[in-house]
């Protein structure tokens, strides 16, 4: 957007960007081409599913990017937040459903899934605050040396504790629901989509847009961006840096729990459910460049297209291998991701 202001012509700047960032455009064009091929060969339904998945991966990745951009933490336990979201949604939705089975109520059964998703948000927020205050705050107070690596390893520990703790308390059982809404799949333009998927996509879009507005338009959002650019500078102008760190972490956790809650029909709740969303969110942020919040949104869709393409033409089992191989290739040529990463801590050892 800023380029448009600086340059007289939008097309000139686009041309310049194509010339200087060949790899980026190559990946974008390749993705579009793959999307078109998938759409033509496998039908528009697959394409619609891809878009829905892309929205969810973007939601996961945005949280990851935010945490890295502001706090310089490579968050390995993001998938565990997803898991918590799935459990929260399950334990709110199932009693509601049981209650509704005895006392049918159309209005209530329409909003029951939304209630369980909304409950997941504050749950995630509180969880984020607890983790930040218990783990990262003490470390930050003690030392900032080797922060990126230490914080990363701490998140590994958190993931370990949360997964096994859940296993201990709730056991390894799968707790899932077949669907949120008992309605027939909607059909338009030859695309059949269940209401669950549509709502999941809408939830992703709404939360990403509101996060974006929050970051751009509010004082607090501006403070978060300030801390991500220069922590010392932010402290000097009177921003409560510790508070911002906690807020950022809690927000990111809440986004992941929301994703977990709205995808409960696809991913049943069990202790290690977070691993796959975590992998994917990591593919996304590594592909676009660590800490690049806007880029992660595009990245979510790119990875979703790659996955669908692999499922369709190579085989479901290769779903993980092929995107990873592509990712490795991309990183070889553009080590800081296709959209670039200009975050303070990336170059730190």
């Amino acid at each position, binding site marked *: 957007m800023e380029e448009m202001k600086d340059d007289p012509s939008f097309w000139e700047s686009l041309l310049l960007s194509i010339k200087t960032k060949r790899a980026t455009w190559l990946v974008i064009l390749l993705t579009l081409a793959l999307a078109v091929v998938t759409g033509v060969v496998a039908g528009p339904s697959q394409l619609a599913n891809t878009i829905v998945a892309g929205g969810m991966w973007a939601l996961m990745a945005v949280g990851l990017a935010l945490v890295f951009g502001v706090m310089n933490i*490579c968050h390995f336990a993001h998938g565990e937040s997803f898991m918590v979201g799935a459990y929260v949604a399950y334990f709110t939705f199932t009693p509601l459903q049981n209650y509704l089975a005895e006392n049918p109520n159309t209005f209530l059964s329409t909003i029951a899934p939304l209630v369980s998703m909304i409950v997941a948000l504050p749950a995630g927020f509180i969880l984020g605050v607890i983790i930040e205050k218990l*783990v990262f705050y*003490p*470390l930050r107070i*003690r*030392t900032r040396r*080797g922060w*990126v*690596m*230490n914080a*990363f*390893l*701490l998140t*590994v*520990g*958190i*993931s*370990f*504790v949360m997964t*096994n*703790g859940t*296993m*201990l308390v709730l056991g390894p059982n799968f707790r899932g629901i077949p669907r949120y809404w008992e309605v027939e799949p909607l059909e338009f333009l030859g695309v059949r989509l269940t209401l669950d998927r549509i709502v999941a996509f809408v939830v992703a879009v709404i939360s990403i847009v509101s996060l974006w507005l929050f970051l751009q338009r509010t004082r607090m959002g501006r403070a978060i961006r300030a801390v991500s650019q220069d922590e010392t500078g932010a402290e000097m102008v009177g921003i409560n840096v510790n508070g911002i760190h906690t807020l950022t972490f809690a927000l990111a956790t809440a986004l992941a729990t929301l994703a977990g809650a709205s995808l409960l029909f696809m991913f049943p709740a069990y202790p290690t459910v977070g*691993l796959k969303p975590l*992998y994917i969110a*990591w*593919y996304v942020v*590594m592909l676009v460049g*660590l800490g690049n919040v806007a880029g992660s949104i595009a990245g979510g869709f790119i990875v979703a297209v790659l996955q669908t393409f692999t499922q369709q033409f190579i*085989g479901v*089992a*290769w779903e*993980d*291998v092929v995107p*990873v*191989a592509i*990712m*490795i290739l991309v*990183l*070889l040529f553009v*080590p*800081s991701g296709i959209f670039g990463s200009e975050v303070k801590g*990336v*170059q*730190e*050892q």
Partner: protein
Amino acid sequence: MNVNTEKTLETKRAPGLTGAWRGFTTALGHVGVSPLGLALFILVALLPLIPPFDQEHILRWLIMGAFLGAQAVAFDFTGGYINVVNFGFAAVLGLGSYTSAILSNELGIVAIHPGWSPWITIWIGALVAGMFGFFLGWLTLRLRGIYAAVMAWFVGIALMGLATNLTDITRGSLGFSPRPLIETTANLPYYYTILAMLALTYVVLRLVTKSHLGLAFQCIGQNIDAARASGINPTRYRIINFTLSCTFAGLLGGFYAHYIGSLTPKTVMHTSKTVEVLALAYIGGRGSLWGGIVTAFPFVFFIEYLRSNLSELPGLHMVIYGVLMILMMIFYPDGLSGLYRWAVEKIKSRSKGE
């Protein structure tokens, strides 16, 4: 630097003793073993002959302890020296396991069954894993710290995906049964094999870190730009480091395959296996090599004790383990080796004061 303090300490402690003892400790110092370390090693080696420890299930724990300890050494060689956490460690270990298992396989359940002796194929597995480490080092050479760690993780995921999908030769998640290394049901021969491997891993890697290579590794780990400015080629040393570390990972993987007798990608190559080794290496102390070994034995006993006594609470030992790791990282990142160094300094300064 840790090595040097140990060595000077040993030579200082020696004066009252005979010259032969001094020569012996110096010789030991050359391979990076302190007399205390040697004594502990001999104790551990004799443990299966002492009554409470001569039961088969305790022997199995000891084997797992030595196996985890040796892994922690190989892991610390990368993580503690060049400061790149190899998140694909378990996958590389699994590569060694599978290579060795497939090459020694003589049953027709999978496409390839050459049926070579496991004693030879273990080394081929190590070689293949080493070559893969070379490749991994080359892949990550343009990436720094955290990027390299995550890239290694991705490569590990891809490798595990391959092992799961190439069902013709690995049988995927159905599981694969490698031939036993030794035709016996007793655990004792296996125990001495893994102890020998542990000693080999430790001594070789210690010799490397004591040479000029080790100095270069530490330089790269501390400040890559300063290292480059003083004429160290980070690329070269990183590749050497990855190759060596992965070779030993492959060797240990081969042992594991032929000892445990069943392989699935999930039980060997999963990220959680890397995390286990990482926690051991970090609790033991970064950049010490020996810290992981000293932690591994009590750790395995502790875990197995908890597991057998708290069988109604599955996973509690893992939670305790994780919490311990988190607390260690926040409040005492030097680990066990840091504690040892601190204690040695304390004793030294007290004896000087008297």
